[in-house]
């Protein structure tokens, strides 16, 4: 199986991993924050925020990719600004692939983490408040640890989605080998050429192995957490 993979495919595999990991790391804090806000706060525009978060799920991925291109392209309002201010470019760069993956994974992460927040007993936060803990300390030491299972679930969902993302990625950053060609876009290319079925199958298997590995790690972490809490 491994023989079927050429250097270009290996590059795509490593890039996919990097893209998925960076997307998760970068999106996680924002996802946790938005999930918290949606779970606990009431404010005007809450439903709007909720809707915006879900957008990448509702829209065809190609449209999301196109919107990203319009916003974050070199001529785009955000893209130009980020480029000039921080020197960060997304369009047709691996960072853009990570952005696309993060955006597409975002609704999944937020929802899972939000369920986690909703399952935390507010009585415990009250107890922490009476013990003098600041909001931030309560958040860090009580709320967040109790939400960890949700965060873990959200992260693994997001990671899997990031590994599989195709439509938005190819639209936003194309499939430039070594820069933006991830496993799914590589598979797409291979589909156009005769006789590359073995490579396609190998890439699919590698995807599955990566995702399964991540899943197993997350399940193991979740079990450890549950054991700590459950006392067995």
């Amino acid at each position, binding site marked *: 199986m491994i023989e079927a993979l050429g250097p270009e495919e290996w590059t795509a595999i490593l890039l996919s991993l990097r893209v998925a990991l960076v997307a998760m790391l970068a999106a996680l804090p924002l996802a946790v924050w938005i999930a918290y806000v949606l779970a606990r706060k009431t404010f005007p525009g809450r439903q709007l925020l909720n809707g915006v978060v879900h957008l990448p799920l509702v829209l065809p991925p190609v449209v999301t990719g196109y919107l990203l291109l319009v916003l974050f392209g070199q001529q785009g309002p955000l893209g130009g600004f980020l480029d000039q201010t921080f020197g960060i470019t997304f369009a047709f760069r691996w960072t853009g692939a990570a952005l696309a993956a993060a955006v597409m994974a975002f609704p999944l992460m937020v929802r899972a983490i939000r369920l986690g927040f909703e399952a935390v007993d507010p009585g415990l936060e009250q107890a922490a408040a009476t013990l003098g803990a600041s909001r931030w300390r309560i958040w860090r030491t009580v709320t967040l640890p109790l939400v960890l299972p949700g965060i873990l679930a959200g992260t693994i969902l997001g990671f899997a989605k990031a590994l599989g993302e195709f439509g938005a990625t190819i639209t936003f950053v*194309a499939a430039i080998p070594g820069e*933006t060609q991830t496993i799914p876009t590589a598979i797409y290319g291979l589909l156009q050429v005769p006789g590359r079925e073995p490579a396609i199958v190998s890439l699919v298997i590698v995807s599955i192995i990566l995702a399964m590995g991540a899943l197993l790690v997350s399940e193991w972490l979740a079990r450890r957490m549950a054991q700590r809490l459950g006392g067995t």
Partner: protein
Amino acid sequence: ARAEVLIFAAASLKEPIDQIAEQFDDVVVSYGGSGTLARQVTLGAPADIVLLANTEWMDVLVAGGHVEADSVVNLASNRLVLIGPQGTIPLNLEPDALRNAIGNGRFAVGLTEAVPAGIYAKEALQHLDLWEAIQDRLAEVDNVRAALTLVARGQTPLGIVYRTDTRISDDVAEVAVFPLNSHRPIQYLGALTDDRNDEARMVLDVLTGVQGQAIFAASGFLPPTGNAK
């Protein structure tokens, strides 16, 4: 690592273009649907060379100044063929023959309003007065490769793809070839986004040159027809 020359090419060109790119150290190719590529170029994609399977989008790029009008070249052509699962006997391109062959099944094509292969297929079917007979039996997909798969998996008894596509699968057989005059010529066009990029010009020259044309031919493409605008 940004390559010296970045080509944006229609996915259906992957086989020959990969071979040609291999001959250079620093040519990198990104494949996608022609519409997608064209839109990306209009939004500032850093491509040096654009290779499309669609003349309409090339017109848009030229009109918008995204490619150098002078650099547009005609790279290759293709034939539109009717295919069926392996073992299907050749067919006459006539309404009754098609309807019989389809039976209760469907007819796989690219999106007839959007995907180049689908647009050509619709033109050809209309030209041959076959459109009425099968219009309601179409199964339109987002690219030719998907149409090929439907036929190869026996999902549809017939489908229209480029001749070059039939090489991808051993499970399909060509059952008819559409006459060249039944549709606008199938043109693969290339262009430079920047006239002053000499290395890109060199690559594009290789594509149109003898060596490049031989590789296109080996992949089943036909020499260019008509003239690039």
